[in-house]
């Protein structure tokens, strides 16, 4: 008897997308995102980036300090993404207007609002300056808080969806 017969035989949220940033249909047809979809992602990403930048200007991080602004941006973004994707799911299939909303707000805005490169580079620079413990804690807290936040977002939207 082979060890793994069926992959993904269990999934507590089978209707949630596995990869929220891409088009599900991209698997079925050659990778060629519609111009409209690209435009929608571009629009959301524009404002997501702007928001992140402005928050960075308002709440700058000291050199070799704990990157609180990026952390809060990332964790809040993870929460909202979980919330968003579950909420969209509550309303119907990932198609048409709902898909457009996912691309605009999820892939576009939240994808650009949150940033892994800043997280990684801040950590690398902190380590370079011998703040290894600080860097490690920052990475750990970010990753764990991000997971909890995304899961929480899904749960909250699930709960609201179940009550309506």
């Amino acid at each position, binding site marked *: 008897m082979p060890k793994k017969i069926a992959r993904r035989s269990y999934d507590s949220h089978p209707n949630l997308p596995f990869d929220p940033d891409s088009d599900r249909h*991209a698997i079925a047809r050659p990778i060629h995102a519609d111009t409209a979809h690209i435009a929608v992602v571009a629009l959301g990403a524009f404002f997501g980036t702007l928001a992140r930048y402005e928050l960075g200007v308002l709440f700058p991080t000291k050199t070799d300090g704990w990157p609180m602004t990026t952390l809060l941006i990332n964790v809040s973004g993870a929460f909202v993404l979980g919330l968003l994707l579950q909420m969209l799911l509550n309303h119907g299939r990932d198609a048409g207007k709902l898909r457009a909303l996912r691309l605009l707000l999820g892939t576009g805005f939240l994808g650009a609002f949150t940033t892994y490169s800043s997280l990684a580079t801040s950590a690398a620079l902190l380590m370079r300056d011998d703040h290894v413990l600080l860097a490690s804690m920052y990475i750990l807290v970010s990753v764990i808080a991000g997971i909890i936040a995304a899961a929480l977002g899904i749960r909250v939207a699930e709960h609201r969806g179940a009550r309506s």
Partner: protein
Amino acid sequence: MIALFIALAGSLGGVARFILDGHIRTKASHNFPWATLLINSSGSLLLGMVSGIVLKHHGFTHAEAIIGIGFCGGYTTFSTASFETVRLLEERRYGSAFSNAAGGALLTVAAAALGVAIGLRF
């Protein structure tokens, strides 16, 4: 005014992520979020390089802000990475979830560190 260019670069980054993500998804295994890992790592490498250059020259020019905060920030994503880890957990694929979370952190930090080292040589 710089805010506009940063936002435009971020817009480009987001689109690059969207297109690349779809592309990688058709090539790699559908069961593991390789696309996000690749995107976040390459983006961290780039930001590392930009940061190395900034360190070397002791200052931030507009170009570095646009490429770093703008493009790299829009290109890489933390929310998607977190969500994908949660999905793996929901599928009870705990090993994969851990790999995605830990791998994502390690790969991106290593890429950023490498980028910084490269940038310092410019």
